[in-house]
């Protein structure tokens, strides 16, 4: 095969399929991380730069629960998800909301500041060492012929689907969800009908953080954590969110799969390192030509 004059390697279908399947699982992980981000964007219209740092922090929480208390990472969800909610709520109410004056660029910079503080606090407290949770079942899985799938990846896939569903149900069925949608759509109007907008902002930020905490539980068996861990995901999560359409859960899910599969195929054809260029390339093209994303509404 040839692309723009470059000779690309030729692979059999099973290799390509195997790559695509592992792309789906990778995509599920990206979607998991992006779900919280897209919720925060959809409501607050802010780009939360601290999202990766919050993921990293939750990963440390899962790690220490396992390391110090012997808590299984999946079970840790019962603790880190509510913990994430409270942390996110306080962060929005106490820091971001108080300092950003409601201006987009300022919020972006404030969340960058928050990310820097969290990352370096982790560096200061936990050092730069990589730490990983070891579970006895981390290599168990199922052989699909074209590729081998470990249960932990399958759990992440199931998790991403369930969280998408849960978020959607929450937004459609509950009063809080409806209030969140009202605020997202018409901030001033929501305020006029008596919705406490600051509270709803903080709730949304809390839920977004809770999502990322859930993602951390699902990622912990596979990924080692270190202070810059979040940065690895920040750009990818933004890409997924922008691709899917900011604020769209289904978009985040689909966007995650698209990015995951593209990345794996990119690595297959362009090599482990250069393959990653596909992510930045998609991001740049989407920002330029379709900033509302695949599923986003026109601004």
């Amino acid at each position: 095969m040839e692309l723009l004059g470059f000779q690309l390697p030729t692979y059999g279908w099973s290799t390509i399929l195997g790559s695509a399947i592992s792309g789906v699982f990778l995509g599920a992980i990206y979607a998991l991380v992006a779900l919280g981000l897209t919720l925060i964007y959809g409501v607050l219209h802010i780009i939360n730069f601290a999202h990766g740092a919050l993921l990293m922090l939750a990963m440390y929480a899962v790690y220490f629960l396992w390391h110090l208390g012997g808590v299984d990472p999946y079970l840790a969800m019962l603790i880190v998800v509510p913990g994430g909610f409270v942390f996110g709520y306080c962060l929005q109410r106490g820091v971001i909301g108080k300092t950003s004056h409601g201006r987009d660029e300022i919020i972006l910079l404030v969340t960058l500041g928050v990310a820097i503080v969290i990352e370096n606090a982790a560096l200061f407290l936990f050092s730069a060492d990589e730490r990983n949770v070891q579970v006895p079942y981390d290599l168990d899985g199922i052989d699909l012929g074209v590729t081998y799938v470990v249960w932990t990846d399958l759990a992440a896939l199931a998790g991403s689907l369930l969280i998408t569903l849960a978020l959607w149900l929450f937004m459609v069925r509950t009063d809080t969800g409806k209030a969140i949608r009202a605020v997202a759509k018409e901030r001033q109007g929501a305020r006029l009908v008596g919705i406490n907008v600051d509270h709803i902002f903080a709730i949304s930020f809390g839920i977004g953080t809770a999502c990322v905490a859930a993602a951390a539980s699902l990622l912990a068996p596979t990924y080692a954590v270190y202070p810059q861990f979040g940065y690895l995901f920040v750009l990818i999560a933004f890409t997924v969110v922008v691709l899917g359409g900011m604020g769209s859960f289904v978009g985040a899910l689909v966007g995650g799969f698209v990015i995951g599969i593209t990345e794996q195929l990119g690595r297959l054809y362009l090599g482990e390192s250069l393959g990653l260029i596909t992510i930045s390339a998609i991001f740049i093209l989407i920002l330029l030509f379709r900033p509302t994303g695949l599923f986003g509404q026109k601004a």
Partner: protein
Amino acid sequence: MSERARLMGWALLATVLVLLPFGVTSGRWIDFVELTLFVAVMGQAWNILGGYGGQYSFGHALFFGTAAYIQALLQFRYGISPWVAMWFAAAGSIAVGAFVGYLSFRYGLRGSYFALITLAFAEAFHVLARSLISVTEGGRGVQLALNQDPERAIATFQFTFAGEFLQAYGYYYTILIILLLAYAATWWMERSRFGASLMAVRENEDAAEALGINAFRVKIGAICLSAAIMSMTGVYYVQKFLFVDPGIAYGPSKSVEALFAPIIGGLGTVLGPLLGAFFIHGVGEFAKEAIGAVWEERPGVDLILFGVILILVLGFLPRGLVGLLDTAWRRLTGGRGGHA
């Protein structure tokens, strides 16, 4: 303050910085000031686009890294003189700036979207620098040969083995000269039609257009000037450390370092980035000392403080430290201060 008083203030400050090595003999102090000046130049580069132009870049490493790579590779591969290479380095960074600016501004990206796309470009260059091994040496980085011949210190733009004075202060004066040029350029810009147009575009693009300003061209001009200044920090870095790799060049740290100083010091002011750089690095050094004295030395302390200061300034000092000084000056003189 009158224009004259301000100019005198700058002349005084420049004199102090030029004479500093004659008064301060502690190498540690000189190192501290040198690092601060380096950050202050990056800050001014960011300030031209972000502070005066209102376009917040999250990828200024693009211009630092591109210049650093060109500076290093031209010497490494072709043995080109560093004094020649630096012009190519600047041209390369400006070209990248024009390219990124052209795409972003043509397609109307503003605010957060501009921040995201600059970040994405920096990451794309990061990946390319790591992957195109035949060009960039990949993740290993480019290591320049150390010149050990004092006679050739100037020719090689390396001061590690130079005469006593150059060895101690060569790099200090290198960054100082860059700083003075960059700040003079900003001073000039602030008082030019271009600067007025840039600030008008920052404040309100539609109104600026209605008054005859080609907002697209002005923004391209700003990103090119910004890239040109940033490129000099890349040249300085390579000549000092004789090394560059993808993480140093295009990693997030340079992009972030570039925006701290101007925001904390005061956006859209000539003095802001310098003031901000001295403030945060002063606080950072002090905190490291303090923590190191009572506890063990650990990384991260200074950046935690930078982050906290950034958030506090964004929240409560919208005009930064310069704004604070301006208010204080007004109180002191009882008159009006004007923008510093």
